[in-house]
């Protein structure tokens, strides 16, 4: 389906088979830490000499999860979080040496409470070390000070898991690695957002996934192979391949969109996805701000980011989204909202107020009808663009 000779084939492999990436790393004697969420600073893990792999909740198992892989309190948890719990209960995460749960959403907080209680009562089959990173998000001094304590605490935990001390030089190396990958992603984004893109949205999303899975040098090597923008007659955008005029350029916002297949559906339906601001997308623009203390750089970078709607401020999100929309020049914005997403819905009215392009909002879930829902969403976007 995804081809084996294309520049992005290794990225697809990393996206689809994170456990195999872990196996390769561990075969060289390394340790692997799973990160649940974008709010866990992966550079801390890198600094400790371990490989951080952000968990895609549909790719936790080495093979297809058994249908019985469910758990009674799933009703209390979002489907994505339930999949993590289910994998822990069935010891499917044997490819991890530790797990850090970030406070992206309160569903993650709830998962931490559940896992901690199961560990406390000896109800998990294997005692995977689990830590929780309580990142506060208000742009205040009080939150910043608390976050510094939490980052220092997490670093201490990671050092313990790694069995080695982590000094400032390690931290700087971890941050430099992140910055280098961000630069590669920015270059990829330029090709994706060019007047006639040479990189599809689905490819960019796969690249963002891979950047959250592979070691930095490796993912940068593969990203370097991305094609330069081509002649308009040879563009890869679905509609532009039939016309010298590019098809509807669409910016995706709303709930976390983990599945690249969702993007593929939208692209087949005629949309050219030029950008997104959900937390799986990464255009490399979240750069570390300079600071004397390496930990200060890490805290500022995450506390003040607004990569997802959950727990974010509307003003920060509107500023971020507006800037990205302006830069990617879409014809429309498509907001896809999950039923369990308590935050994204609040952004619709302000988005419509500040953006000059149509904003189409669609409620989706990950059920079997999602393909049809996305196809219908694409039709609505095309109609909205045509209606001007």
């Amino acid at each position: 389906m995804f081809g084996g000779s294309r520049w992005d084939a290794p990225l697809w492999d990393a996206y689809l088979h994170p456990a195999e990436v872990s196996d390769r790393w561990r075969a060289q004697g390394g340790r692997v830490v799973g990160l649940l969420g974008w709010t866990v600073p992966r550079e801390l893990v890198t600094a400790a000499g371990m490989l951080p792999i952000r968990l895609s909740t549909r790719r936790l198992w080495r093979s297809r999860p058994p249908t019985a892989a469910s758990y009674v309190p799933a009703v209390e948890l979002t489907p994505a979080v339930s999949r993590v719990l289910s994998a822990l209960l069935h010891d499917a995460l044997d490819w991890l040496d530790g797990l850090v749960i970030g406070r992206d959403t309160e569903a993650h907080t709830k998962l931490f409470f559940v896992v901690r209680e199961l560990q406390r009562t000896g109800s998990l089959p294997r005692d995977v070390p689990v830590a929780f990173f309580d990142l506060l998000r208000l742009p205040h001094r009080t939150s910043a000070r608390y976050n510094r304590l939490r980052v220092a605490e997490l670093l201490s935990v990671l050092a313990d898991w790694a069995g080695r001390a982590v000094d400032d030089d390690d931290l700087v190396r971890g941050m430099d690695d992140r910055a280098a990958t961000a630069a590669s992603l920015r270059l990829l984004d330029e090709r994706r957002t060019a007047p006639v893109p040479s990189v599809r949205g689905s490819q960019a999303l796969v690249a963002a996934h891979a950047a959250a899975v592979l070691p930095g040098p490796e993912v940068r090597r593969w990203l370097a192979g991305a094609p330069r923008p081509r002649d308009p007659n040879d563009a890869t955008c679905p509609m532009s391949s039939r016309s010298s005029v590019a098809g509807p350029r669409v910016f995706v916002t709303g709930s976390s969109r983990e599945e690249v297949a969702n993007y593929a559906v939208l692209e087949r339906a005629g949309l050219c996805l030029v950008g997104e601001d959900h937390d799986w997308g990464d255009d490399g623009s979240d750069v570390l701000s300079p600071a004397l203390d390496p930990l200060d750089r890490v805290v500022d970078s995450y506390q003040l980011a607004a990569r997802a709607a959950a727990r974010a401020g509307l003003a920060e999100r509107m500023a971020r989204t507006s800037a990205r929309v302006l830069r990617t020049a879409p014809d429309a914005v498509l907001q896809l909202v999950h039923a369990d997403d308590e935050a994204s819905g609040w952004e619709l009215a302000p988005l419509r107020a500040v953006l000059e392009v149509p904003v189409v909002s669609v409620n989706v879930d990950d059920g079997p009808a999602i393909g049809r829902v996305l196809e219908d969403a694409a039709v609505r976007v095309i109609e909205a663009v045509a209606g001007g």
Partner: protein
Amino acid sequence: MAESAGMRRRAVLDCSESFARYQREWFEGVRARAKTGEPFAVLSADAPHEIYRAMDIDYVVVQWWSSLIAAKQLGPVYLARLADAGYPNDHDQYNVLPLGEVLADEPASAPWGGLPRPTILQTSLSTDGMRQLFEVWAARTGAVFYPLEHSVDVRADPGETWWEDLPHDWDRFLPADRLDLLADELAALVRALEETTGRRFSESRFGEVMDLANRQAEHNRATRDLVAVTIPAPVSVADTMPAVMIPQWHRGSQWGYEAAGRLRSEVEERVAAGAGACPNERVRLMWLGRGLWSSMGLYQWFEDELGAVFVWSMYLGLAADGYLRYIDGRDPLRALAARLVPMGDVLRMPPWSSAWHVKEAQLHQIDGAVSFGEDDYFSAARLESAGVPVLSIRADNVDRRTWTEASVRDAVSEFVEARVEPVAARRRDGG
């Protein structure tokens, strides 16, 4: 709290009726002062009410106002107004209803003439969308929004017996960094309120407020203990919910303290007289979750039809166990932080929540529990293990799209008959 529709409750306690009258008169005063330009705050239940009390800044609690909206059967209308404006209405219903009232802009039909336009909004950021909700609310009303962080207890084992440890040992039982954070936020809040309202914060007055709040909690603890050990129960949740919560929203005031004392005295009198909420009490139940404010009489339907009494709710339980923080020479602002930091945790964070629910069930000689709209797997599991059957109902208390009286009656009746009656029979037989 009077219901204009739904199933109306019959008052058993004199005090609950007089509290309701007081609340109405007090609210008229709040409206009048707000009209003259006095500062007026709308606060969530986990906001630092005591600071506003000490600074004589009028405030209304979101959850109380939402319960009033629900009791007046206006929830569906206000939820629809939210949708009309393009805002979500299927999460945080307890918090969004007052914004729906703002959007409806129909004071003639609003409860008690409507909530005055707030000058201050405050909440703790405990859900994913809370910050956005309050930011929209502030933008729509012109209020200033003071959010507070809600930190997480990340310890591997946070202990269980918080109800024993927190009153005196709060600074040892709670993580210092969580206390530091909120205490620092509260200090900043005091300064901000002084500047925006022109009111002065008196450390002496604040100490008195904290002391009154503790003494109010002592009354509530005595009331809870009495209800727990007395069979038949002198009162049910149909009375204790409003009789506890109206004074709770006046926490730290002389009236709040005295009202809690009146409740305690009246319960003591009923116990002395052998008066039960349900003379034919057969089954003792606990209600896990928020109250059915729009149909409080539903609780009494189970008394009348099944002899099943809802003896326990979190409202009196928390009023008894959740608020006591003795200062004993320590910083009262830090003591207030210690009251607020664990507020949501004690209800929803295992093992605190589950251990407490079991403790309370055993103290109250509970035969069965109904969990309404709660995410409490571990509470349910531990209650079941302790011999207390649990019925879980997926619904939202103020969202009438999610439940009806008939659906609750049927589910609870079947549950009592099938699972609770045998437990109650063993208890009655002394087994």
